């Protein structure tokens, strides 16, 4: 293959190109422009992401490039839309917070975000182990830094090592640093484990290309080992139990708008990677991976729903609830795998997964933005993100319906969507996942999941209760800043509109995976 052959079909990389060029352009612009008004970079990022998002609709991105290492299909394009939309909302909703944490260095945040997004979009189309792992890491590395964003510490006044880890109440303690470190430690271990599994996969398949691997791999203990390591490694990224330990801590510690992004986009990417591998070269070996996925589902549902109940910090609570939600995503994957196994065909399961990821993105980002709007109203200018522990406890939502009716209504909508109440987008996601699972023959799992999600309502409703059924006391009125408010409004409209008319979106998802 010559260098020119390799470039055949490279036009399907248009969206990735926009993101990559955007990231580098932002870097250059950041260096070139004076430190005064870096906020413009944020708007540029929005523009670029909107451009990329539009391009997924206007350009024909289907085909293969680089001799099959990169494939553009409906699933990949749909995933890219989710990533770009999550990036867009993440930037829009976080603009104020980013500028507040580091007014002169906010450009770097956007560059990192774009690089991470590039990793995600590449991941969605990767059909090659090397590209898969490189893009996976490209996605992860900036996230570590972004999680620690704002946790740039100052030296404590005292000299010498701390006598104990119990810091005095007055001392600043740096939640973002801890959030980033935990994400990093668990992430690095997980990704090296996944790499080990992938190296074994390469060993038994003799190639890095998925299409070749699908033909050459034979089941056996080594494959089981490799698959277990890969599933475990990627389960970290989607935050499925027991690889979820970083989730609540990082959610609580990192800045809220970033968490809004972190809680949806990389998870969707993790699912894309899992789908790529498990329903690609491993589609013929469902016996090997389905028990593992099943185990992850059960543990995630139990741990997520159970641990969320006693949480008083909303971000922690949402972290655990996210673990349970990922159980639902894995259920869609399981259903898809079963159908692929029995009939060898694409299934509703994949379309359901896409719809679920989109629904989860919309509602989850919305909730985090509402939290951010409430917390931001209580902050003064010179505070850093980590100074107030009480920023996001349930109590700050007291009587929100009186302090800001619109925000409370949006919050209620998002929470109901996450809880799976009808007429919100999340309900349909849950119903379709469960329906697909039922038809795939996992009736008992459907019953378990339905029961646990009913239990899960309990903690989602705690938020609603705090907003609507507690007196506001002397808490101040809340007004979201313009960008944040716009993000919340858009997400709320999406939640409601798609909740009322889920048909077209679901139909689009089905078309994307080659059905209908």
């Amino acid at each position, binding site marked *: 293959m010559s260098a020119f052959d*390799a470039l055949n079909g490279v036009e399907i990389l248009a969206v990735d190109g926009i993101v990559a060029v955007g990231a580098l352009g932002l870097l250059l612009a950041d260096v070139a422009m004076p430190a005064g008004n870096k906020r413009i970079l944020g708007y540029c990022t929005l523009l670029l992401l909107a451009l990329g998002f539009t391009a997924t609709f206007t350009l024909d991105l289907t085909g293969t490039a*680089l001799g099959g*290492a990169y494939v553009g299909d409906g699933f990949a394009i749909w995933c890219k839309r989710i990533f770009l939309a999550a990036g867009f909302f993440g930037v829009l909703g976080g603009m104020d917070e980013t500028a507040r944490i580091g007014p002169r260095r906010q450009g*770097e945040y956007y560059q990192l975000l774009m690089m991470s997004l590039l990793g995600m979009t590449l991941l969605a189309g990767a059909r090659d182990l090397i*590209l898969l792992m490189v893009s996976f890491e*490209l996605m992860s590395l900036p996230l570590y830094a972004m999680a620690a964003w704002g946790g740039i510490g100052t030296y404590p006044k005292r000299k010498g090592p701390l006598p104990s880890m119990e810091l005095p109440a007055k001392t600043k303690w740096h939640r973002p640093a801890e959030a980033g470190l935990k994400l990093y430690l668990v992430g690095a271990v997980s990704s090296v484990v996944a790499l080990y599994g992938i190296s074994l996969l390469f060993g038994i398949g003799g190639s890095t290309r998925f299409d070749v691997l699908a033909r050459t791999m034979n089941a*056996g*203990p080594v494959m089981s*080992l490799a698959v277990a390591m890969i599933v475990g490694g990627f389960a970290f990224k989607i935050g499925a139990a027991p690889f979820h330990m970083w989730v609540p801590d990082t959610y609580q510690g990192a800045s809220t708008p970033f968490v809004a992004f972190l809680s949806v986009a990389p998870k969707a990417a993790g699912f894309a990677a899992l789908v790529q591998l498990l329903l690609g070269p491993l589609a013929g070996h469902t016996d090997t991976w389905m028990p593992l996925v099943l185990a992850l589902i059960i543990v995630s549902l139990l741990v997520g729903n159970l641990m969320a109940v006693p949480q008083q910090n909303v971000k922690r609570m949402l972290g655990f609830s996210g673990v349970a939600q990922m159980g639902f995503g894995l259920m869609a994957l399981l259903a898809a795998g079963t159908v692929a196994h029995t009939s060898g065909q694409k299934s509703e399961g994949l379309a359901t997964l896409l719809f679920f990821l989109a629904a989860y993105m919309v509602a989850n980002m919305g909730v985090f933005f509402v939290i951010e709007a409430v917390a931001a109203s209580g902050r003064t200018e010179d505070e850093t993100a980590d100074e107030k522990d009480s920023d996001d406890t349930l109590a700050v939502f007291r009587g929100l319906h009186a302090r800001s009716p619109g925000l409370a209504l949006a919050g209620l909508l998002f929470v109901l969507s996450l809880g799976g109440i009808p007429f919100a987008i999340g309900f349909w996601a849950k119903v379709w996942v469960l329906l697909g699972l039922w038809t795939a023959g996992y009736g008992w799992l459907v019953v378990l999941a339905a029961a646990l999600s009913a239990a899960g309502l309990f903690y989602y409703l705690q938020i609603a209760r705090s907003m609507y059924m507690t007196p506001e006391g002397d808490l101040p009125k809340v007004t979201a800043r313009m960008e944040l408010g716009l993000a919340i409004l858009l997400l709320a409209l999406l939640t409601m509109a798609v909740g009322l008319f889920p048909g077209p979106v679901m139909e689009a998802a089905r078309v994307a995976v080659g059905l209908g």
Partner: protein
Amino acid sequence: MIAMIALSLIALCVVSAGLFAVRSTNLVHSVLWLAVSLAGTSALYLMVGASFLSAIQIILYTGGVITLMLFGVMLTDRNETTKIGNPSERKRLGAVSALAVFALIASAVSSMSFTGGGSTIVHTKAIGQALLTEHLLAFEALSILLLAAMLAAIVVARRRDP
């Protein structure tokens, strides 16, 4: 046969250096033991005919990672960081877990049956060619990844905005 023995010896060297690296009570020693282990691996690559990788291993790992780590040790408080150990309450559980991992991998791997074995030499040129054709996209992604890592490290390690 001699080559096989030599290989085994290097392997032993790599493993024992690794063991010291995770057991040493002095962090600087630990880093240096890691360097030994990585250098041994580099020799291993040379022996099995991956000379290009051997060089890369030396340059990137021994030259890059080890230096980075030593920087890390020096930049942080030396009094506190150089004296480390494996706390006893974790040692047993860690050893059991590590043994379990080893048993699982080894049992799986030894059940594997391979035949033949290519001895064709892959020239560096072929690697370079593959890098710029089939793996072009991954290569470009890697370049951005390195940029991202640099940026991330700067962003994280820098002090607060004035």
